C-alpha cells in the first residue's frame, strides 16, 4: 500500500510542477435554504475540465493560469457561470436557485455529469423528490420500498422492508445514515423503513464496483444523507394520514452560520383503537389494553465557524413497541399477563469538516449506533385487597449491538484529473447475542428467584484504512481504483483482509460508454434472522474463532448511454461469489438457549444476472423501467446434504416500472407496477411412515421427504399502486391532498404458506377432515388519503 501512496504522490508532484496552476475551491449550495448540493458540477467551459462536489458540497479545481468560464450546475437548478482570470488560488461559493420550469433545467444542466461519464457503475441515485411522488403503502413515503423498485434490488416479499441486492441478504447491506451504520432499518414488522423522507436530502445505492472508502458488507452500500436545515429562514412541513402523522421544522439559529432541522413521526393506530379494545376486554370480563406504535425523531444542527471549519451534530432515535396487558376485573385473585415487545435504533454523529488547504478537505467523525431488541412477558396473580401481594413469573429477552466509531477521511484534489480519497476508521463493537432473564416472586412466602441465562456480551474492534483515486486518464478513459484494508480483533482471534477495487469507463462517441468493475469485500458482522416473516428478531453477531468472516468478489460489465439528454439507459451483467455466508442449521431457529455458534453453519453462494434500466429524470413525465434476470444459489456442507440449492430470494424475473406525470401545476399522478418471481421455500413433497431409530426399541415417527431445500416456488408477486396529488398554493403555505391505492387490483401476494385442515361435510351427512396447503397474504387493496402542508 505504501508503494501505491508513493505513486500517487509522485504523480501529483509531477503534474503540479508542470506549469503554473492555481486552485479554485468552494461550496455549491441551494440559494434558498443554504443546503449543500452533493455531486454538483463545477466545470470550466473553456478547457472542459471539471469536478463534482463531495458529500459536504465542497469542490476543488486546479487549473492553469488563464481565463476561466467556471460553471456550477446541478440537476433541477439554474446553473451559474462566472468568468475571470485565474491568477491566484481562489475561493468561489456558488448559490444555485431551483429551476421554476423543468425545461429550463434541461438547458442549464447541459453539462451535468451524465451516467455514461461516471467511472463508477452499479450506482443509482434517486432524487428524494422523485421518491416522494411514488405511491406508497398508507401514504407513507418509504425510501427502502422505493429502492426495491430498482433493478438488482429486491424486496424479501410481502410486508418486508429489507433489501436483497444482487442475490445477497439484508445484513450484507451497509446502510449509512449520515455516515452512521443503521442495523435495523424497519418499522412495523418490516412494512415501513426507519427513514423519514422529510428529513432526507440524498439517497445513493451502490450495488457493485464499490469505491475503496466503503467496506464491511458484501452486497451494497446505501448512503442516506440528512438535510442540514435551512440557514436563511424558517420552514416546515406537516402531514396527517390515516395511520400516522409527521412534521418537519428547520431554520437558522444564527443566520447563514448555524441551522437546525428536526423531524418526527408517530403512528396512532393504538390510540384510535383504544376505546374498542377496552370494550373488547370488558366483554370478556377483563381489563386491559393492546396496541402497536412506532415513532422516530431526526435532529441535526450545524455550525459554520468560518470558511474552513464546520461542525455537524445529527441524531436519530426510533422505537417500535407492541404491548398486550390484561387482568381479570373481578374476584379475589386476579390473573394478569403483560407482554411488551420493543425494538429500536439510536444513532448519533458528531462531524467536523476542516479545509486544510484548497485541495485537501478533511472530515473527522465520531459516531455511535445502538440497536436493541427487548421483549418481555410477565404473568401472575394479584390479590384484590392487596395488589402488592402478587405472585409473578417474568421472562425478559434482550439482544442488540452497540457501535462506537471514529472516522477520519480526506478528499484530495491535486488536479482536475484526480479525485483522491483516503482515510481510516475504527469501530468498537459490543454485541449482545441474546439473554433471558427469568424471575419469580411470591412475597407472602418471601420467595425470590432470579436467573439470567444465555449469551454473554462480546466486544470486538474493527478498523479500516483506504485510499482511492478517481482518475481521468484520457478524455475517454476514466478509472476509480483503490484499496481497502480492514482488520477485526475479537476474543482469541484476529482477522485481516486486503481488498482491491477497480471500476472504469471508456467513452465512445454518441454519449455511450462501456463500464467494468471488480471489487472484493469482507464482512465481519453477521445477522441471524428468521427468513419467514419480518419480525424484528434480528440477532447481530460477530466473527469469532468458530465463525469466519464473510468474503465476496464481484465483477460487472455494462454499457450506459444518455439519449436526448433526458433518458438514461444502462445494461449490466454481474457475477458474484460469496464465502462463509451464514445460515441456521436444519432444525435450528429463534429463541434457543444453546450457543448461537452451534446453531449456525457457513457455506458458499454465487449470484449472477442481467440488469436493464431506463430512467427519465426530466420533463412532465418522469420515472423508470427496470428489469432483472438473475440466479442466486447457496452451498453448505451441513444443508441439503452438501448439494447446491437456490437461495430463498433467488428471483428469476424482477420487473418494475414507475411513472410520475405532472398533469397540471397542481395535479400530479403517479403509478408503479411490480412483478417478481415467487420466493423459494422448503415444503415437503411427500410424507412417509416409519422413521425408526433402531430395531431395538422400535420407536418411529412419520417423516417428510424434501426433494431439495427451497424446492417450492411461492406464487409470483405483482401489484399496481397509484396515487394522485392535489397541490394548492395558499398565501402563507402550500397544501397537498394525496389520494391513492396500494395493490389497486387486489392481488393476493404470498406472505407465508402454512398447513391446515378443513372439515367437509360428506353426502351421507358425516364430516371429513382434509389437509390443505394455504397461502396467507397481508395486503388487499389499501386506499390512502393524506393531507400535508409546507410553509
Amino acid at each position, binding site marked *: 500500500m505504501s508503494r501505491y501512496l508513493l505513486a500517487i504522490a509522485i504523480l501529483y508532484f509531477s503534474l503540479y510542477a508542470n506549469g503554473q496552476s492555481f486552485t479554485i475551491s468552494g461550496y455549491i449550495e441551494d440559494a434558498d435554504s443554504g443546503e449543500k448540493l452533493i455531486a454538483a458540477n463545477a466545470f470550466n467551459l473553456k478547457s472542459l475540465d471539471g469536478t463534482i462536489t463531495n458529500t459536504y458540497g465542497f469542490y476543488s479545481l486546479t487549473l492553469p493560469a488563464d481565463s476561466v468560464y467556471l460553471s456550477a450546475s446541478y440537476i433541477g437548478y439554474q446553473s451559474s457561470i462566472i468568468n475571470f482570470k485565474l491568477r491566484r488560488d481562489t475561493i468561489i461559493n456558488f448559490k444555485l436557485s431551483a429551476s421554476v420550469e423543468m425545461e429550463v433545467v434541461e438547458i442549464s444542466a447541459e453539462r451535468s455529469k451524465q451516467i455514461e461519464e461516471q467511472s463508477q457503475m452499479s450506482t443509482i441515485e434517486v432524487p428524494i423528490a422523485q421518491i416522494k411522488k411514488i405511491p406508497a403503502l398508507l401514504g407513507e413515503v418509504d425510501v427502502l420500498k422505493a429502492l426495491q423498485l430498482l433493478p438488482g434490488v429486491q424486496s424479501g416479499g410481502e410486508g418486508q422492508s429489507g433489501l436483497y441486492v444482487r442475490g445477497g441478504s439484508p445484513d450484507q447491506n451497509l446502510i449509512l445514515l449520515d455516515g452512521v451504520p443503521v442495523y435495523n432499518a424497519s418499522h412495523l414488522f418490516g412494512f415501513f423503513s426507519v427513514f423519514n423522507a422529510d428529513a432526507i436530502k440524498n439517497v445513493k445505492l451502490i450495488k457493485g464496483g464499490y469505491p475503496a472508502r466503503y467496506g464491511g458488507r458484501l452486497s451494497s452500500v446505501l448512503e442516506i444523507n440528512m438535510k442540514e436545515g435551512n440557514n436563511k429562514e424558517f420552514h416546515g412541513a406537516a402531514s396527517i394520514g390515516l395511520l400516522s402523522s409527521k412534521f418537519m421544522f428547520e431554520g437558522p439559529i444564527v443566520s447563514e452560520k448555524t441551522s437546525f432541522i428536526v423531524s418526527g413521526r408517530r403512528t396512532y393506530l393504538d390510540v384510535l383503537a383504544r376505546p374498542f379494545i377496552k370494550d373488547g376486554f370488558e366483554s370478556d370480563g377483563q381489563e386491559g389494553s393492546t396496541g402497536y406504535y412506532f415513532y422516530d425523531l431526526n435532529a441535526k444542527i450545524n455550525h459554520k465557524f468560518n470558511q474552513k471549519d464546520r461542525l455537524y451534530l445529527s441524531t436519530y432515535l426510533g422505537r417500535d413497541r407492541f404491548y398486550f396487558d390484561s387482568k381479570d376485573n373481578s374476584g379475589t385473585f386476579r390473573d394478569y399477563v403483560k407482554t411488551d415487545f420493543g425494538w429500536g435504533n439510536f444513532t448519533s454523529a458528531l462531524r467536523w469538516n476542516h479545509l486544510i488547504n484548497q485541495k485537501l478537505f478533511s472530515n473527522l467523525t465520531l459516531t455511535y449506533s445502538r440497536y436493541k431488541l427487548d421483549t418481555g412477558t410477565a404473568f401472575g396473580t394479584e390479590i384484590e385487597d392487596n395488589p402488592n401481594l402478587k405472585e409473578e413469573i417474568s421472562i425478559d429477552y434482550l439482544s442488540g449491538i452497540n457501535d462506537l466509531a471514529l472516522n477520519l477521511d480526506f478528499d484530495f484534489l491535486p488536479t482536475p484529473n484526480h479525485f483522491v480519497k483516503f482515510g481510516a476508521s475504527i469501530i468498537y463493537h459490543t454485541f449482545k447475542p441474546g439473554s433471558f432473564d427469568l424471575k419469580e416472586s411470591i412475597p407472602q412466602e418471601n420467595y425470590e428467584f432470579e436467573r439470567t441465562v444465555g449469551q454473554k456480551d462480546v466486544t470486538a474492534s474493527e478498523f479500516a484504512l483506504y485510499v482511492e483515486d478517481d482518475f481521468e486518464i484520457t478524455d475517454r478513459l476514466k478509472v476509480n481504483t483503490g484499496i481497502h484494508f480492514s482488520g477485526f480483533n475479537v476474543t482469541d482471534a484476529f482477522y485481516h483482509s486486503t481488498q482491491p477495487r477497480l471500476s472504469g469507463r471508456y467513452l465512445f462517441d454518441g454519449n455511450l460508454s462501456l463500464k467494468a468493475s471488480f471489487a472484493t469485500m469482507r464482512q465481519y458482522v453477521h445477522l441471524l434472522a428468521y427468513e419467514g416473516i419480518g419480525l424484528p428478531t434480528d440477532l447481530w453477531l460477530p466473527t469469532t474463532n468458530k465463525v469466519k468472516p464473510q468474503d465476496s468478489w464481484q465483477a460487472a460489465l455494462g454499457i450506459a448511454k444518455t439519449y436526448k439528454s433526458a433518458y438514461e439507459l444502462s445494461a449490466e451483467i454481474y457475477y458474484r461469489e460469496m464465502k462463509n455466508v451464514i445460515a441456521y442449521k436444519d*432444525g435450528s431457529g429463534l429463541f434457543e438457549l444453546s450457543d448461537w455458534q452451534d446453531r449456525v453453519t457457513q457455506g458458499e453462494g454465487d449470484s449472477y444476472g442481467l440488469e436493464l434500466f431506463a430512467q427519465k429524470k426530466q420533463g412532465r413525465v418522469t420515472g423508470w423501467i427496470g428489469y432483472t434476470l438473475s440466479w442466486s444459489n447457496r452451498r453448505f456442507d451441513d444443508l441439503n446434504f452438501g448439494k447446491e440449492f437456490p437461495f430463498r430470494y433467488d428471483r428469476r424475473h424482477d420487473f418494475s416500472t414507475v411513472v410520475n406525470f405532472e398533469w397540471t401545476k397542481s395535479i400530479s399522478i403517479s403509478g408503479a407496477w411490480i412483478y417478481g418471481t415467487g420466493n423459494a421455500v422448503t415444503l415437503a413433497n*411427500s410424507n*412417509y411412515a*416409519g422413521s425408526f431409530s433402531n*430395531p431395538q426399541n422400535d420407536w418411529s415417527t412419520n*417423516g417428510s421427504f424434501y426433494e431439495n431445500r427451497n424446492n417450492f416456488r411461492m406464487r409470483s408477486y405483482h401489484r399496481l399502486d397509484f396515487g394522485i396529488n392535489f397541490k394548492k398554493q395558499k398565501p402563507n403555505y402550500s397544501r397537498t391532498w394525496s389520494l391513492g391505492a396500494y395493490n389497486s387490483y387486489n392481488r*393476493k401476494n404470498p406472505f407465508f404458506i402454512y398447513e391446515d385442515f378443513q372439515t367437509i361435510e360428506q353426502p351421507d351427512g358425516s364430516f371429513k377432515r382434509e389437509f390443505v*396447503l394455504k*397461502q396467507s397474504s397481508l395486503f388487499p387493496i389499501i386506499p390512502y388519503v393524506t393531507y400535508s402542508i409546507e410553509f
Partner: protein
Amino acid sequence: MKKIFVILLVFVFMACSEDFFSTTLEVDPPPHVDRVVVHAFANAYHSYIKVNVTKSYAIDQDNPQYLITDAEVVVSSNSGQSRVIPFSAFGPFYYTLDLEQGFFVPGETYTLSVKVDGFDEVRSSQTVPEIVDVNALEFIEDGGINNEGEERSGVDFEFLDPSQENFYEVGVLIDPTLNGNPEHGYPTYLESLDPNTHRGYTFENLLVDDASYNGELKKISLQIYPTSTSEAESKFIFQWRSITKDYYQYSRTLRRFEESKDNPFASPVQIYNNIENGIGIFSISNDSYLRF
C-alpha cells in the same frame, strides 16, 4: 377531475366480491411421486437384519395405505453370499431375518436390494464397521453436575480411535437380572459435556464422532442419574457400538426433524437418506458390551 373519482369508485365496487378481504387462498402442494421407503437395520454382533418397507404418499393424501407386503428383499455381500428376507405378519419390521453368526464380517460391504412391483428397484450398500476396543471403563459416584446444574454419577471410558473416520453410539443399560445379558437390559438416560457427543434419535444413547481426535487415545466422560457405588456393582452394562457414517447422519437429522417439526420458526429438516431410487436408511452396526 370527475373521471378520476369515477375510476376510483369503479375500482372500489369491482373489488367487493365475496372473498375480497380474504387474505388466504389454497395452493397446490409440491409435486409428489410415490417412492419406496426402506428402513433397514442390521447388526453384526446380534446377527440380524430387520427391514420395514412402505411407500411414500402425498402430503394432502387422506388415509394413505403405505405398507408394502409383497416386496422382494435381499441382502447380499461382496463375497457372493445373499439371503432373502421374508415377510412376516409381525411389525413394525415385517421383513426380519436372524442370520447365522459371522454372516456380517467387519470390513466387508453388503448391499440391500428391494424390488416392488411398479417401482424401480431400490438399493443401498454399507460396510460393516470394526469393533473398537474400550481400554478403560470406570464408574464414578460423583460425576459432577450436568448442563442444568443437577448432580450426576459418572461413567468414564477410554479407547484408541482408529485413524480413519469413525462413528460410535454409546449406551448404558441397566441389567435388572444381574446376569450381564444385554438382551435383558434397558437403557438409562445419558448426558455428556464432551463436545464430540451428540444426541441422536435413540433418546437415551449418545452418538460420538471422532472429528477432533481422529486416530488418538480418547477419554469420554458420561453422566447418568445419581447412583451409589454399591448399587452400581453388577448393575450396568456398557454398550459400545460402532456405526456407519450414514446411520450417524440419519440419527442426528431424524432427531432434529422430530424436535423441530412443530416449531414454525425453525428451518425444515431433511432426514438423511441413503436409499438409491427411494427414501430411508440402511445401516449395519457392530456392538460390544462390557459389564461393570
